[in-house]
């Protein structure tokens, strides 16, 4: 059930992107998102496409793997496409009378926006996949912690947020295994998760959810004791085994991105 979820599915590698500082990768991913949502014209889209293909080639992760990670998102993409197709006003291409009162129509503008919206989301997913596929979860949380650090002044608990993410990532496979085990055990006791109304099916989940929560609490309790025993006392005075610094590679990446961004901006203005 969880095998298609790509978050945390780091792929070992030694590419330019693998070796970048996680902080810079996070900043660039954010800037890339902003860029994707600001471009509107076709030429600017082409520039974004070239940039996306560029990073996909540069990250040295098999394209098939990136596509596999997109699979669970297909529904969201389709939903976006359909909503945009039907909800955009403009010059109708096809119309359909519904109950004689509503008119459903697909407009020329609708098609355009739907296509652009899907492309935008697709690139966004590819971009974030490249981030998670080339960065170990620990480096990622570490990067988030460092980026949030300045916000400590306004009482944002950056260390705690990062620690929570680390533990969550660590326990996802464990809890997925456990869910599978409990489910099989209840199936063996004759539980039925597949038939009946939605209400009945939701009720049928209780024999899975209760043991899962009980176990999660027990694990949390034991983990807390184990962390305490290993001298955990919050983020104060903590050091790190791997310290990454922003280097010339990261500056280079930033400059390349800014060139593309400038080109996209120029294209917007000219068109």
């Amino acid at each position: 059930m969880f095998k298609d979820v790509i978050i945390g599915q780091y792929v070992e590698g030694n590419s330019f992107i693998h070796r970048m500082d996680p902080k810079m990768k996070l900043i660039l991913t954010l800037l890339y998102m902003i860029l994707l949502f600001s471009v509107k014209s076709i030429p600017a889209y082409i520039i974004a496409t070239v940039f996306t293909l560029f990073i996909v080639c540069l990250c040295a992760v098999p394209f098939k793997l990136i596509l596999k990670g997109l699979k669970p998102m297909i529904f969201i993409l389709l939903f976006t496409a359909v909503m945009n197709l039907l909800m955009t006003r403009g010059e109708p291409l096809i119309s359909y009378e519904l109950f004689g009162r509503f008119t459903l129509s697909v407009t020329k503008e609708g098609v355009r926006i739907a296509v652009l919206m899907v492309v935008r989301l697709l690139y966004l997913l590819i971009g974030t996949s490249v981030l998670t596929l080339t960065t170990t979860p620990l480096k990622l949380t570490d990067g988030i912690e460092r980026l949030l650090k300045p916000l400590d002044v306004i009482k944002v608990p950056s260390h705690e947020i990062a620690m929570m993410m680390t533990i969550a990532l660590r326990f996802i496979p464990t809890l997925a295994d456990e869910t599978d085990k409990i489910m099989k055990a209840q199936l063996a006791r004759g539980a039925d998760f597949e038939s009946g109304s939605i209400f009945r099916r939701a009720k049928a989940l209780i024999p899975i959810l209760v043991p899962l929560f009980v176990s999660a609490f027990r694990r949390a309790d034991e983990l807390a004791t184990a962390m305490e025993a290993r001298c955990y006392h919050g983020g104060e005075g903590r050091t790190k085994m791997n310290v990454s610094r922003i280097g010339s590679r990261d500056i280079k990446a930033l400059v390349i991105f800014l060139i593309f961004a400038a080109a996209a901006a120029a294209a917007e203005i000219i068109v």
Partner: protein
Amino acid sequence: MISVRNLNYVYGAGLPGSRQALFDINLDIETGDVVALIGHTGSGKSTLIQHFNALVPPTSGTVVIDGINVTDKAAKKSDIRKKVGLVFQYPEHQLFEETVFDDVAFGPKNLGLDEAEIKKRVFDACAIVGIKEKYFGFSPFELSGGQKRRVAIAGVIAMEPNVLVLDEPVAGLDPKGRDGILAMITGLHEQRPEMTIIFVSHSMEDVARVANHIIVMNEGSVAMTGTVAEVFSKGDELRGMGLAVPQITQITDRLRAMGYELPPHIYTLKYGERAIAALLRGEERTDV
């Protein structure tokens, strides 16, 4: 009667990184037998027993239990699960109801039985595992570790299966808890002689106390089958698979190798002690 024929199972068949867990398993288990399934982790024991109640579909081969082909996709899962009760490792981790009674009743309820029958079965099952009536209203989470496990096992016994399969029923228990569960298995066999009991274990001492037959698994294949005596007489082969015979068998084997006349097939302490005592008294060898 359980017969397994040419059973193969491949994890993630057809995908990269697939791994074969079971290789051409052939087995026959008689009705009413008590069988121990031994082998180290990864030998395929857990995968095999999950085939017995259709939780895992085989890659090829069949498992037929009392005339029903449980590996047939068309077979009704509820019929199979009525026939074969499976108690997982650490079964106390699946307790979920508010009271002990309700938790034990969960299986029988799923079978669609009427109130009176459910009640009768809960009482019977709890009597077998030694959970007293005064605990019926307790939350299962209030009980001790050993008691929780008994309640969980009762939940499967209450479904009155023809075949009861227990995956490492004594894992993690202390000697007292372990002795209690082993005695429960022996008691169950006496009360329900027609029920076939299969249990997975790592401990040869435990196996010697409870089982009639042994199936030894090694790297996804059946390495040996036979009576306890037959299997324990192959101490060297067992050691080769990372398994050891009970200490008492090691001791009597070595005394026999030194030329002392001891009867074969010693694997319980009581029997071994009687044989050695007889030898020390200078009595003629008596196959006690």
